[in-house]
C-alpha cells in the first residue's frame, strides 16, 4: 500500500543481518537498475541480508540460489515492503 509521504520508505540498507525483506521498487535508473534486476533483485523477490563485510560495508544478500554483494549506497536505492 502507498506509504504516507512524510515517512521515508525503508530500504535494504535499513535491515539487520539475518532479516528477510521483500523488494518493493528500485530508485536507481539505467545501468545500475538493469544490473540489480539481472542479478535477480526484482520487485516482489524475497531476500535475506546475510551479513555485512567486516568493516560494515558492503553487504551480502541471498536470494534463491544466488549470493550477491553490493555497497550500502546501492542498497539504499532498493525500497522494501514494510510488511515483514
Amino acid at each position, binding site marked *: 500500500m502507498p506509504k504516507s509521504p512524510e515517512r*521515508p520508505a525503508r530500504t535494504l540498507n535499513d535491515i539487520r543481518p539475518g532479516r528477510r525483506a521483500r523488494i518493493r521498487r528500485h530508485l536507481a535508473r539505467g545501468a545500475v537498475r538493469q544490473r540489480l534486476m539481472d542479478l535477480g533483485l526484482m520487485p516482489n523477490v524475497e531476500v535475506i541480508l546475510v551479513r555485512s*563485510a567486516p568493516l560494515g560495508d558492503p553487504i*551480502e544478500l541471498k536470494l534463491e*540460489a544466488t549470493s550477491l554483494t*553490493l555497497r550500502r*549506497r*546501492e542498497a539504499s536505492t532498493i525500497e522494501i515492503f514494510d510488511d515483514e
Partner: protein
Amino acid sequence: MNERNDLLVALAGQQNAGKSTLFNMLTGARQHVANYPGVTVDKKYGQYSDAEGVVRTVDLPGTYSLTSFSLEERVARDFLIQERPDVTINVVDGSNLHRSLHLTLQILEMELPVVLALNMMDVAEGRGLEIDQAALSTRLGLPVVRTVGRKGEGRAPLRTAIRALAAADKPQTTEFPVTYGPLEPDLVALTQAIQTTPELTGMPARWLALKLLECDAQAATWVRERLEPAQAEPLLEQAAALSATFERNNGLDVSDHLVSCRERAVANLLDGVTTDPESGRPTLTDRIDRVLLNRLAAPAFLVLTVFLIYQIAIVWGYELTNYTWPILAKTRELIAGVLPEAGFLVDPYTRSMGLWLVDSANTLLNYVPIFLILFALIAMLEDSGYMARIAFILDKVLHRFGLHGQSTLPLILGGVFAGGCAVPGVMATKGIPDNRARMATILTVPFMNCLAKVPLYTLLLGIFFVEDKSLMMFYISTMTIVFALLVSKLLTKTVLRGEETSPFVMELPTYHLPTVSGVLRRAFERTWIYIKKVGTIVVAVAVVVFTLLQFPGIPEDRMAEFEQRGEAAVVAFERAMAGNAYQRLATAEHIGPLVNYYNDYKRAKLNASGAEGSRAVAARFERRNPEYYPLVSRPRGDKDARRANRHLRDLSSERKSIRREMKEARITSSLLGMIGRSMEPVTQFAGFDWKINVALLSSFAARESSVATLGVLFQQDEDQNASLEERMGAETKAGGATALLGTAIILFFALYPPCLATTVMIKVQTGSYKWMIFSIVFPTLLGLGVASAVYSIGLATGASGVAMMSWTYFSALTLLLILGFLGGRSGRNLRSTSVDSTETGEVRA
C-alpha cells in the same frame, strides 16, 4: 551437401556458469585470444574437428543480460547479431536455473538456433535438486544437454547436439516463449514496420522492435546506420511514441515491464520442471562463508592467504631459481662460445651486443618459476571463488581511496608486499567494472614492489643500512600500499574526477575445488604473456640502451693511450717469456686466444662443482687446445709452465684493468652519460650524481638494469673480489654520501615510473597514449619531489637516513589515516538519512 561442413559456434552464458571450463572441454588445447575490434574485451576462440568438418568456437564474454549498458554485453550481442553463428550454446548454471533462463529467453528472441547446456549439474544434484530435462526441452523447444565442465562430462552429447541442430534447417521455434501482455499490440505493430523495411531483413524483427521500445541506444544506432534518415527517423519516432504512451498508460518503464514478463515466463517454464527439496537449507558454501566471512575471523583468513601466497610463490619460488639459474647461465656460455671470440682490448660488436641481449633476457627469464607459481596460486583463488570474497572484505577500504574491491587482484599480482610484476597486474584490471576505479588501479599498480625492484633495495640496504636492515625492509614492503592508496585518492580527486563510475554489485559464486588443468592453463597463459610482452620490449630496449652506452665511444686520444698500455703489457709478456720452453706461444697470433683461454678456464673452474666437475673441466680444456693446456694446468715439475702461468696472470689482470677503465671512459662520454650529467642540476637536490641518474634511466627499460648498470659504473673488479656493495659504498661514501642518499634513492625508486613494458600495457588497457605518458611523467615528478624534499630536509636538519625514512613513512601513514577517517565520516552521514538515497537514485538517471 558438400564434403566439409564447417560450423561457427558461440558460447554464451552468465558469469560463474562455468562457461570457460565448458569451452576448454569442448575445444581442447587449441585456443587463441584476440581482442574484439576497438575494445579491450578478450575474444577467445578455439576449434575442434569432427567427422563432418571443423567447428570454430567462440567464447563470448560472460553476461547476465544482453542490454547495451555494459561493454561485455554489447560485445556479446554484436557478435550474435552480426555473425549469426550456426549454433549458440547457452551455458547455464543448473543450480541457478531461474536466473539463468532470463538470458536464455533473450537469446531465443534473437532467433538463433540454441542448445541449452545444463552445466554444473553435479553441484545441483549434490544439493538434491532435480531437473526434468525432457520437460524443459519441450517447453523451451530446444535441445537440452547435461554437462559437468569441470569433470569433462557431456562433451560427446554436446557435440552431437550441435551437429543435429545445425543439420535441421527449419527454425527451432515458431512460437516466441515470452508474451508481453499490454505491450504486445505495440510490439506487433513495430515488428511489422521493421519486417516491411527491406534494409532491415536479416535482423531479428521482434527482437529489434523490443530493443527500440526499450529505447536501447545501440539499437537506434543500428537502424540509423542501415537506413536513410528519411526512413530511420519515422521508425525511431514511432518506437519512441509507442514507448512513451505505454509508460504513461501503465505507469511502468518498458524495460521493467519486459523484465517482469520474462520473470513470469521463467516461473511458468520451471513450474513442475524442477524440484528442490533442500531449498532454503544452508548449502556448503553458506557454511564455509559462516567461518571465512565471519566478521572477526575474515581479516585473519585474508592475512593468512596473502602470507601463504608470499611464502610459497616469492620465498620458495626464489629458492627454486637457484636450480633454474644454472640452466640460463649454461645457455649464456653456449651462446658466448658461438659468438666471435673476444678481442684483446676491444670486442667485436656482435659479441658484446649478443651477450648484452642474452644477459637482459636472462635476468627476466630468471623470474619465470616465481611467476608460474604465483599465477597458479592466483588462479586457484579465482576458481575457488575466494577472490570475490576478498573483494567483499576489502572493498570498503579500497573504495575510500578511489579503488574498488576488485582492485585486489591487480594489486596482488603487482606485488603488494615484495614480488610481483606490474604487467600482469595492469592486465588484470580488465575485470573492474567501475571505470574510474579501474583507471586509478592501472595508475597505482606500478607503485607496488615488483620483483625487479628488490635487487636495488637489497643493494642499498647492504651499503647504507646494515644495522637497520629489517626495519628498512619493513618500511619498504609496507609503504608501497600506503603510497598507492594516497596516490589513488589524489588522482581520483583530480585528473580522474570526470571518469565514469559504476556501483559495486557482484555475485559471490559458489565455492568450487579448482581443477588442475584449469589452474595450469591459466598459470601458463599468464606467464607466457609476461614472457612475450616483457621479453620483446625488454630486448628491444636493451638494444637502445646498449647503443646509448656505446656511442659516441671513447675519445681518440684516450683510446690511443689505452692501446699503448695494451701494447706495453703484451711487450712485457713477450719479454718475460724469453727463454721459456713455451716461448713459441708468446707471439702476436697466440697471445689473444691464450688470454681468452686462460680466463675461460678460470671461470669454468670456479663454476665447476666438486672434484669430478673439476676433472671434467680439465678434460674439456685439454681437448679444446692441448698446446695451451699446460699453461693453465701447471703440471708438476714443469717449472717453465708455472712461470708462464704467472706471466699470463699478470697480463690478464693488466688487460682487465685496462678494459675496465675503457668501459668507464666509454660510459662517461656516452650519450647516456651525457644525459645523466645534464640532469644533475635538477637531481642534485635529491643527492643523485650522474652515475645514479644513468642507473635510474636505464632502469626505465627494465628495473633489473639498475643494479647491472651500477655494477658497471662502480667498476667491477674480479681480482679484488669486493662485492658491489663494498665498492659502491666505498666510492659514494668517499664522495660524502650518507644513508640519507640511500633513503632518497629508495623513495625515488618506490615512486618511480613503471618500466617500459608496463607503460606499453597501460597504453593497451587505457587505449590512450595520453594516459601512458601521464603514467611516466607523474611518478617521475612525484618521486623526484619526495626524494628532493627528504634529502634537503635531512641535509638541513642533520637527520640520519633511517630517521628521515621513519618520518616519511609515518607522515604518509598519518595522512592516510586522516583521509580514511574523513571519508568514513561523510560516508556515515550519507547513510544515516535515507531521504538522501532517493536523490542518489535520481541523480544517476
